[in-house]
C-alpha cells in the first residue's frame, strides 16, 4: 500500500463516491426512463376489442412487452397471434384458464419465498385467493373449471440447501378450498403401495372429466408418469422418464419433456409426444432443451415458452419450431365453442399494439468449397426494414457438430454479446433502428468432411410482419484432403 497523506485519501474517496453514486443514479434513472418511455401512445383503453375476442379461439398469456401491461394477462386471437393484444390488469407469473375459471399464480414480492394464487372468473374478477410458499412453476385448471393445480419450487434464500423440491397443491376452485398436496395422496406401483419421503410431484394435467389427471413424480433421481384420481386421492405409476405431461384436447396423447442427458446441474430435455393407445413415444422437431409444460394449440400443434417468446411445433415430429408470438410466457389456449358463458369477458382492457419491425437476414460464405481444418468465413447481415425500431434483436445460428467456432467479430458491445450454448451461437444487440444494419463476421473451422449447411434465424421483441426473410442458409462443401498450399 502506498502511504498517502490523509487529505489525499479523503479527496480520493470523495472522487470514488461521486463517481459511483453518479453512475448508479444515472443507470437507475435510465432504467426508469426506459420503462416510462415504453408507456407510449400504442396503449389505450379499449373494451370493444375484448368483445371481439368472445367468439373466437384465443390464446391467453403473460405479456412480457416492457411498459404498460408488462407482466399482465394478454389475449390474442389464435388466428392472429402477432396482432394487437388485449391487456387485462392482472399480474401473473403463471396462469391458466379453462371452463370459465382462471388460475393466476402471482407476482411475488416475497423475497423469493412466497407466491399468491388467485382464482378468477370469465370477467377476471378475483373469486378466491390463497398463499403459497415457494416460487411459481406450473398452473393448470381442469377442463370443467372445477379443479386447479399449482406447482411451486421450494427453493431460495436460506431456505433450501442446494437441493430443490417442489410442492404441487390441488384446489377446489368452485368453493375456494385447498384439497391438499399430491404428497397427501397414496401412490401405487404395479398395484403395490409405493411410498418414499423424497417424493416430489409437479406438472399436473387434467383429463376432460375433471377427476382424472396426470403428473410427474420424482423419487431417488428417477421421474415417473403417474395417473391420478382426485376423488379417490390415489395415483398409479404408468411409466418412467416423463416430466410435465400435457394431455391433448382429444385426450389421446400426452406431450411431455423427456430427459435425454445432462450432468450435475444441467438436464437436457427433449419434447416428446406419447400416444396413450399405442404407448409409442415420438420426439418433436424442437431440438433445444426446454423447461416448460407444453400447451396444445390444437390437436396437431403444441405451444411452449422459450424465454422471451412463445413457440410452436407440430405434435407429430414433423416440421420445425416456429416463433408463435413474441414476448410472452405461460400460454393457454381457450377454444371457441366451449360455451359462451365460459369465454373470457374482461370488463376493462387496454390494447397494446407492438410496433412492427420487419427484420431481414442474409448469410454469405466466402468459400463454398474448403478442406478439413480450413477457416470458413461467413458474413451475416441483419437489416431492420422498419417501420419501427427493433428491440432485443437476436441471431441464432444452429452450429453443426462438425465445426468449431474460431472467431466472431465485431462482437457487438454491451452487456449481452455472443455466446455458444446448446449447440447454438446466439448474438444479440439491444436495438436496431429502422434501416440500420448489423453485420457479424463469423469464422468456423470444419472438423470433418461433408456438406455443411448452416442456418441463421433472426428475431426481435417486436412483431415481424414478414416471416420469410427471417432466416437464411449457407452451404459449404468440405473435402477430406487438406488442400495443397
Amino acid at each position: 500500500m502506498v502511504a498517502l497523506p490523509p487529505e489525499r485519501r479523503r479527496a480520493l474517496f470523495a472522487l470514488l463516491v461521486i463517481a459511483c453514486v453518479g453512475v448508479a443514479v444515472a443507470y437507475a434513472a435510465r432504467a426508469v426512463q426506459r420503462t416510462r418511455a415504453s408507456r407510449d401512445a400504442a396503449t389505450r383503453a379499449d373494451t370493444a376489442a375484448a368483445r371481439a375476442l368472445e367468439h373466437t379461439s384465443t390464446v391467453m398469456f403473460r405479456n412480457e412487452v416492457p411498459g404498460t401491461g408488462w407482466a399482465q394477462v394478454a389475449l390474442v386471437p389464435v388466428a392472429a397471434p402477432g396482432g394487437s393484444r388485449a391487456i387485462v390488469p392482472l399480474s401473473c407469473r403463471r396462469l391458466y384458464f379453462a371452463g370459465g375459471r382462471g388460475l393466476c399464480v402471482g407476482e411475488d414480492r416475497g423475497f423469493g419465498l412466497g407466491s399468491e394464487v388467485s382464482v378468477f372468473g370469465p370477467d377476471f374478477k378475483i373469486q378466491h385467493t390463497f398463499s403459497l410458499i415457494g416460487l411459481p412453476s406450473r398452473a393448470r385448471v381442469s377442463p370443467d373449471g372445477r379443479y386447479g393445480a399449482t406447482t411451486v419450487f421450494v427453493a431460495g434464500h436460506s431456505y433450501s440447501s442446494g437441493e430443490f423440491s417442489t410442492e404441487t397443491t390441488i384446489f377446489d376452485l368452485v368453493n375456494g378450498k385447498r384439497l391438499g398436496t399430491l404428497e397427501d395422496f397414496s401412490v401405487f406401483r404395479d398395484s403395490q403401495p409405493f411410498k418414499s419421503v423424497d417424493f416430489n410431484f409437479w406438472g399436473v394435467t387434467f383429463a376432460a372429466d375433471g377427476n382424472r389427471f396426470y403428473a410427474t413424480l420424482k423419487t431417488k433421481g428417477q421421474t415417473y408418469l403417474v395417473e391420478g384420481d382426485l376423488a379417490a386421492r390415489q395415483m398409479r405409476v404408468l411409466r418412467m422418464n416423463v416430466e410435465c405431461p400435457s394431455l391433448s384436447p382429444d385426450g389421446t396423447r400426452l406431450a411431455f419433456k423427456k430427459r435425454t442427458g445432462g450432468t450435475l446441474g444441467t438436464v437436457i430435455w427433449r419434447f416428446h409426444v406419447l400416444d396413450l393407445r399405442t404407448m409409442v413415444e415420438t420426439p418433436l422437431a424442437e431440438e433445444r432443451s426446454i423447461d416448460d409444460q407444453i400447451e396444445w394449440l390444437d390437436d396437431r400443434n403444441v405451444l411452449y415458452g422459450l424465454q422471451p417468446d412463445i413457440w410452436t411445433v407440430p405434435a407429430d415430429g414433423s416440421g420445425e419450431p416456429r416463433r408463435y408470438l413474441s414476448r410472452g410466457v405461460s400460454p393457454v389456449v381457450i377454444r371457441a365453442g366451449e360455451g359462451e358463458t365460459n369465454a373470457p369477458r374482461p370488463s376493462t382492457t387496454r390494447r397494446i399494439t407492438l410496433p412492427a419491425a420487419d427484420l431481414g437476414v442474409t448469410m454469405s460464405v466466402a468459400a463454398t468449397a474448403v478442406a478439413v481444418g480450413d477457416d470458413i468465413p461467413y458474413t451475416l447481415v441483419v437489416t431492420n426494414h422498419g417501420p419501427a425500431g427493433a428491440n432485443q434483436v437476436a441471431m441464432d445460428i444452429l452450429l453443426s457438430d462438425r465445426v468449431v467456432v474460431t472467431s466472431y467479430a465485431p462482437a457487438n458491445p454491451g452487456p449481452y454479446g455472443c455466446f455458444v450454448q446448446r449447440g447454438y451461437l446466439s448474438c444479440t444487440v439491444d436495438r436496431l433502428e429502422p434501416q440500420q444494419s448489423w453485420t457479424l463476421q463469423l469464422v468456423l473451422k470444419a472438423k470433418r468432411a461433408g456438406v455443411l449447411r448452416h442456418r441463421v434465424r433472426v428475431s426481435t421483441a417486436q412483431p415481424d410482419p414478414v416471416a420469410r426473410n427471417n432466416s437464411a442458409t449457407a452451404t459449404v462443401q468440405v473435402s477430406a484432403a487438406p488442400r495443397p498450399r
Partner: protein
Amino acid sequence: MLAWFSAARYHARPRRGILYQLENSVQLLKARRWIPLVSRTVIMLGLTSLFTDISSEMVATILPLYLLFDLQLSPATFGVIDGLYQGAAALVRLFGGVAADRLRRFKEVAVVGYGLSAVARLGLLVVGNVWTLLAGVVLVDRLGKGIRTAPRDALISFNSSPEELGTAFGVHRALDTAGAMLGPVLAFALLTLAPGAYDAVFVISLCAALIGLGFLTLFVQNPPEAATGGGAAERHTMSWSDTAQLLRVPGMASLVLAGTLLSLATISDGFLYVAMQRRVEFAARFFPLLYVATAAIFMLLAVPAGRLADRIGRARVFIGGYMLLLAVYGSLLVRWTSPFPVIVDLILLGAYYAATDGVLMALAGAVLPPERRAGGMALVTTGTSLARLAGSILFGLLWTWRGVGFAVAVTLTGLSAALVVGAVALRRGAAEQSGRAPA
C-alpha cells in the same frame, strides 16, 4: 513436532496487545466524541460492511427471481448455484484467516476478499445466461465473502481495547445489518419502478461494493507489528496440523465446541418464517417484512448487547441469546390464537442475533493470542457456519419426514442439550484462560 514446539513457546510469551492499546489511546479518546468507546477503524470497517452488504443483499434477494424467471434456468441448475451460494464461503474461511495471520497483512487479505465480491458484480453484468459462468460468478463472490470475514474481525479486535471488544463488535454488526436491510429495499424499489431492470440492480450493486472497498483501502490500516504478535507468527506454518494447534489455545476448544453445537441446533430464518406462516396464515407478501423486522431489531440491539456483554460477561450474554432462541422454538409448539406471537418471536429472534453474532467474535478475540487471531476466528466461524448448514439440512429432512412440529421439537431438545454443554464448556474455557492471562 515443530508445530507443537512453537505452540508450547508462545504460551510463555507475555501478551503484547495491551501495549498497542495504550499507544492507540489518543485515537480512542478522539473517537469517543461521536461514538463512545469505539475506534475510528472499527467504524470504517463497519461502513465497509454496510456498503458491501447493500451490494450483496441487493443481488441475493433478486437472484432466485433472475435465475428462474429471467434466465429460465431449470430448478436443478438453480439448486446447484444456490448450494454454492450457501456453502462456498465456508471452504475458504480458514484459508483467509490463517493467511492473514501468517502474512501479518489483515487489511490486504480483507481487500482481496471484498475485491473478489466486487469483481463478481461485474461478472453478473457480462456473463448472460450461461449457467456455468453464472455459477463461477457466484463462487467468486462467496469465496470473497469467506476470505474477508476473519481478517476483518481480527482488525476489529486489534483496534479495540480488550474490555470493550463486545461493544466494538456490536457497533460493527449494527452497521453491517443496516446494509443488509437497505440492500433488498433498494433492489425491490428499483424493480418496482423499472420492472425487469436487473442490469440496473447489478450496476448499483457494483457501485455500492466499490464504495465499501474504498472505505477499507483508504481509511483502514494494519495495526503495528508489535500489536499483532510480531515475530511469533513467522514460526507458524500454514499447514493443517498447525491450524489444528489452534484448538490448544486455552479456552479455544471450548469456544469452538460451544459455538458449533449451538449452531447445529438452530433453524434457518427461512424455515422459521414458514413455520410461523403455517401457524397464523398471513399472505406471502409479508415475508420481506419478517426479514426486515428481524434485521431491524438486530441492528438496534447490537450495540446495547455488546456493551452488556462487556459489563456482565460475554459468555453469559452469548448463552442468554440462545435461551431467547429456545423461547422462540418453544412458542412454535404451543397453540397460537392471535398473530401476536409472531411479533414477540421476531423481537426475540433479533435480540438473539444481537446477543450472539458479534459477541461470539468478542469471545474469540479475548481468547486468541494476537499472532493467531484471524486464523482462530476463522476456525470458530467455519465451525458455526458448517454446523448451521448441516442443521438447516437436517431440519429440512425432519420436516419432510415427520412434519414441522416434530422437526421443531427435535431441534428444541437439541438446543436445550447444546445449551447445557455450551454453558459448561464456556465456563471451563474461562477457567482455563484465567490461568494464563486476564481477559
